[in-house]
């Protein structure tokens, strides 16, 4: 047992040093140490592989080794270690954590393209969660995200082409033709589909507008994921476009229950590039929830729940909606540019949660709107 303890302690020290190196920006050395930690922790676990009575020692060592394997992308090895741990008799709590880890392993597999080839103007979106089965997903959760991704593609394209934010009216026909979004048949992994931007690509004016749009979306979502709103705003300096991007990202992000993970994969320089969007429970999204978007952030910060009854977008810089609460109080809510058409309007007649700043005249300057989850 002493040897197991020594190997485990060495593994944990190496894992700590790897974290330290990661923070110093030395990613390749960090991966090297994580791999060393993984080898030692796996060795420790294998030394008590047949000691099924030794719980929780056995399952915790296996879980720890599997977590390290996943960190250095030894996906198959992580799967094997988790399976070995579950084949024993782990305490319920550790068994649940092993299953969570296994979900991450499977999601990594789904992110990987597994024989599906992607062109540079295509990307894959994978979903997992309670409403996602093997090749099947609840239509609402899937269709809404498809619509939001489509909207994001067009908005980013319009921004890239230097167009002012379009609060009303249709997308231009030329842009529709150039950037039209195509969807593949879903694949039975978690639930994975390929999006193709721009059909046959014959009419794209300059090389790679579609690629540019996809790269911009990936980088923007990466910054959103890291809650690095300063960097995101530098990347999208136009307020309306920035607000719109954050609003759409919030809608695409998983709710943590029905949809647990949303992952995107693309191919760049012949390599898979993946991005997993965090759940709202993660720190980063909590930071984003609290971040004041560039609205008129003056007055008391309040939250109201009610039915979205009225939307008036005649003033493009300051649309107006009305929300009727259960007490039949009616609130006028001012919607800043960038949010009315893509974020607010799809929720018309729905029960919504509004957060914003209460003004002296009783109206609210909108910060965030989301649908209330029904029981």
């Amino acid at each position, binding site marked *: 047992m002493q040897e197991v303890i020594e190997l485990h302690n060495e593994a*944990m020290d190496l*894992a*700590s040093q790897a974290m330290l190196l990661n923070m110093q920006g030395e990613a390749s050395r960090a991966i090297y140490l994580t791999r060393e930690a993984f080898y030692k922790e796996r060795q420790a676990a294998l030394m008590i592989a047949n000691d099924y009575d030794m719980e929780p020692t056995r399952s915790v*060592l296996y879980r720890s080794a599997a977590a390290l394997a996943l960190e250095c992308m030894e996906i198959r090895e992580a799967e094997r270690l988790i399976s070995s741990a579950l084949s024993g008799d782990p305490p319920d709590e550790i068994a649940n*954590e092993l299953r969570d880890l296994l979900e991450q392993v499977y999601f990594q597999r789904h992110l990987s393209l597994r024989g599906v080839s992607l062109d540079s103007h295509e990307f894959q979106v994978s979903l997992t969660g309670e409403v996602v089965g093997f090749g099947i997903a609840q239509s609402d959760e899937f269709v809404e995200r498809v619509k939001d991704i489509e909207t994001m593609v067009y908005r980013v394209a319009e921004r890239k082409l230097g167009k002012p934010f379009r609060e009303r009216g249709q997308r231009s026909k030329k842009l529709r033709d150039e950037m039209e979004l195509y969807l593949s048949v879903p694949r039975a992994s978690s639930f994975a589909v390929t999006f193709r931007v721009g059909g046959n690509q014959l009419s794209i004016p300059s090389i790679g507008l579609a690629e540019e749009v996809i790269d911009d979306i990936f980088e923007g979502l990466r910054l959103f994921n890291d809650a690095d709103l300063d960097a995101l705003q530098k990347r999208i300096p136009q307020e309306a476009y920035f607000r719109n991007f954050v609003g759409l990202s919030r809608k695409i992000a998983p709710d943590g229950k029905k949809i647990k993970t949303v992952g995107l994969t693309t191919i760049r320089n012949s390599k898979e590039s993946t991005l997993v969007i965090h759940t709202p429970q993660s720190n980063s999204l909590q930071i984003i929830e609290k971040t004041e978007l560039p609205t008129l952030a003056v007055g008391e910060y309040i939250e109201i729940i009610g039915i979205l009854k009225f939307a008036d977008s005649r003033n493009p810089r300051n649309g107006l909606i009305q929300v009727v609460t259960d007490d039949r109080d009616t609130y006028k809510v001012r919607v800043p540019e960038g949010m009315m058409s893509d974020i607010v309007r799809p929720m018309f007649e729905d029960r919504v949660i509004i957060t914003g700043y209460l003004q002296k005249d009783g109206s609210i300057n909108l910060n965030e709107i989301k649908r209330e989850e029904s029981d």
Partner: protein
Amino acid sequence: MASYETLLVIKFSEMSQKINLNDLCIDKSDRPGWSKVFGGLCAEAASVCLEKQGHINSSTLHIDGDYSHKFEISWSEVTDEMHRFQNDDQVAIEFGAYGISALIIPKLTNLTIIERSKKGTGFDFWLGSIDDPAPLFQKKARLEVSGIGNGTEKDIKSRVNTKLKQITPSDGSLPGYVSIVEFSAPCSRVVKKCKK
């Protein structure tokens, strides 16, 4: 009239003990689950998080939940280099919470961090008595730690609930503690799991 026991509890909770984050960087025989490297990383992260919330060099850390207590917490000057190094807020908050929990939990529970294991991208910790020779992770209480940079009472409550909900109470549940550290107050909510 209050019993002696109650009076002692009240008196203990009113007392303020001193803790110093620099202690985490010292090898201590009663903290075998820590290496100096890990301790230094956590101490630095906690100092940076506290300073980011406007506390300079020392503050009073309030404990609530299943314990009521307060600690005078102090730390060395935070340099620009430390700020640069700890520039990922999420990571700093997580590691800062590890550091503070490692200092307060032994004082609240008389158990010390004996072991740690890898869990997801972070660690969980195992508490035990230093004199108990039980094998790795056995007969130990588990400590799950989480940090919040600047949060409300609602945020802390929700984080505790999330941590507790991850465990469905059953005979297979492991005994242990949840420690949520909030850096703006600063405060820590320490809750016992599996109170059966």
